[in-house]
């Protein structure tokens, strides 16, 4: 294998794959990046067996071939180079020489035969989406996923698609986030899949610009084809929870407020909450909401009042301020509406004034208030 390429080009490609290399793995082969040179194109692949990312770049290929080389070392060397032409040359003994105008760097590589193969997804279902749609589906739900290994189905984002609409749901049992996007251009068979937390995070990093991605789903894997990158991810094959069941149907009270104001007030007041419960109490009256936090152990407390419109007389509810802030951070409209049934029932939050083809809701379980 022999090819030449600009340092910036290969470094950019390397950045997309290098973080997949596992920190620790019993499979030493996974510490490598697979470099493959075909006619006119070069690909870099890294895998942790759960996720595999392949990055394609143009290069001047003199001799085709492939090799597996230590990924972090390769990345470190390329990072330290300025943008100069770099030549990669490997021999049959799987030793690779990197040549630049500064000198030569030799790496001991391995036969790429042992490198895990990307899953074949010939039989899968396809869906084509705009990058920004996929980005929003992930960004505004993934914060609610769980890392609790007791519930593997919650360790990812659950996607459901049918012709004309796609939605994403994530929950950790304390909150739930749902984003739905309707567009007639979405053509697909009905589809259900849980994509792991780690996979959606990698995917999000690659979703740049206003391009499109093509996703292909099989029973166990998904492939995401972007402009120069393909990501393969093993799906979480557990059954997702019946999330519809926990969405309250009958709403009793509704509060409309300024998103930025609630966010800023919560952020300040939360500094005074008990660090373990992180509890912030909302006392909502017809024209204002009072936020209150205190830490009995250390004697600090804080109160702020901001205007709102509330449909009830007075309502008292407490939340974990971290969950409240997470939710507010993902509401991108100037106003939000929060809906309540009882102080010990799930509260609903939605952005006000979304385009008609979009739906977004967050469910937040309160902290039970000690009844005096």
């Amino acid at each position, binding site marked *: 294998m022999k090819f030449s390429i600009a340092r910036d080009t290969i470094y950019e490609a390397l950045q997309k794959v290098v973080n997949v290399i596992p920190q620790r793995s019993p499979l030493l082969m996974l510490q490598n990046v697979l470099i493959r040179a075909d006619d006119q194109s070069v690909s870099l692949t890294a895998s942790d067996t759960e996720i595999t990312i392949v990055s394609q770049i143009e290069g001047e290929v003199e001799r085709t071939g492939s090799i597996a080389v230590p990924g972090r070392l390769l990345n470190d060397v390329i990072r330290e180079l300025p943008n100069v032409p770099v030549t990669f040359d490997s021999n049959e003994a799987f030793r690779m020489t990197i040549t630049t105008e500064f000198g030569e760097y030799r790496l001991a590589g391995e036969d790429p035969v042992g490198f895990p193969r990307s899953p074949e997804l010939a039989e899968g279902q396809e869906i084509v989406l705009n990058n920004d749609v996929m980005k929003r589906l992930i960004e505004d739900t993934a914060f609610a996923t769980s890392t609790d*290994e007791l519930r593997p189905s919650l360790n990812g984002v659950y996607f459901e698609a049918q012709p004309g609409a796609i939605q994403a749901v994530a*929950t950790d049992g*304390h909150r739930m986030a749902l984003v739905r996007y309707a567009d007639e251009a979405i053509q697909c068979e009905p589809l259900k899949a849980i994509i792991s937390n780690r996979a959606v995070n990698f995917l999000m990093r690659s979703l740049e610009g206003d391009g499109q991605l093509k996703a292909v789903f099989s029973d166990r894997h998904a492939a995401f084809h972007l402009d120069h990158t393909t990501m393969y991810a093993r799906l979480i094959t557990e059954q997702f*929870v019946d999330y519809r069941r926990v969405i309250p149907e009958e709403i009793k009270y509704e509060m409309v407020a300024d998103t930025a104001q609630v966010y800023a007030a919560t952020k300040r007041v939360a500094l005074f909450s008990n660090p373990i419960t992180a509890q912030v109490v909302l006392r909502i009256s017809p024209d204002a909401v009072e936020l209150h936090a205190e830490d009995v152990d250390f004697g600090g407390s804080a109160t702020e009042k901001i205007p709102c419109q509330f449909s009830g007389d007075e309502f008292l509810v407490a939340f974990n301020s971290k969950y409240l802030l997470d939710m507010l951070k993902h509401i991108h409209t100037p106003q939000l509406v929060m809906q309540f049934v009882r102080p010990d029932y799930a509260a609903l939050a939605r952005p006000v004034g979304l385009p008609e083809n979009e739906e977004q809701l967050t*469910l937040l*379980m309160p902290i*039970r208030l000690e009844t005096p």
Partner: protein
Amino acid sequence: MSWPRVIVHVDMDAFFASVEQLCHPEWRGKPVIVGADPRGGKGRGVVAAASYEARRLGVRSAMPISQAYKRCPEAIYVRPNGALYADYSRTIMRVLAEFSPLVQPISIDEAFLDVTGSVHLFGSLLQLGQAIKQRIRQATGLTASLGIAPSKSVAKIASDAGKPDGLLIVGPQEVQTFLDPLPVERLWGVGEKTRQRLRDLGIQTIGQLRDYPAAVLRQKFGKWGDVLWQLARGMDERPVQMEEEIKSISHEHTFEKDQADAEILEATLLKLCEKVASRLRKHQLRGKTVQLKIRFADFSTFNRNKTLSSPTNLTEDIYRVCVSLLGEFREASQPVRLLGVGLTHLVPEKGGQLSLWDVENQRKLTLEQLIDQLQERYGQSILVHAQTLLEKKKNKDRTS
């Protein structure tokens, strides 16, 4: 002088040995020694309890078993049966709860009761004491010794003074005459070290301690000196506490023979998880951090823990985490000597962050609480996970 507080100390007589004699009528009237195996165990271990017949022959609890065997080779030696004693203990504690809501168990066979508020219901102190003894005897067939006094420390000394099957009431005005002639080591907390140091000061009886100047005691013993000064006067304001605040709940199991069978290890783990979860529920607590303790044949010991996203007291949840923690030792090349399961970061069962699955979890909780109740009433074996029977079955298969 009236009683400011009425504290009862209940102490079962030779508890383990008495339970064994109760369950083996043929052992009654004979010396019974509960503890390590004096022969097979190569004389390792100590006497856990000795019946009064054995005590007459000079055997004391905590004595090395080899020494007991020298003094009393004809005694009946029996391995402790912890589950059996715990069953009796629970019954006794339940009986005590009939006499006062303020019961503080301090060990498997000892408890304090504050009966200040309830003594009038039973007539006199003597009648109350007799009623407690009688109810314990009725419920278990065992005898207890009771001390009744205005403070915990005096009550404890009084129960000891009357043993066995004793009942001693020390009124506020009798405290001094009762304590004075007793050796200092009878005071709660005075061990061998303090006894030695006091003897160096020429103090052997509680009376001598009482006559000693407080300032000198403080100089010699610091704060402990103040406490000694007070204890010598029967002064002890410590309340009878229902329960210390629980920081963690754990159970351990040491295998009779080091165990390498993965299925038996998991079955044992399940049994431990049941116990831990059941105790959490009993105390209306949930725990957030699950801890697995593992000791291998060579005594190398490891602790692994995992913190959950929300606290639990369900057997199923705890077990799932434990199995995954145990999985980290899959490659271990030696058999396991001990397994332990514990939960820390405990929070009250009610309140706190609510969960979207509260409805579902509540169903599981109700089921496990029902099992708790059945086991409490009919014994642990009334309803068990089938998996936990595996060890017995495998042992049986092996022998047959």
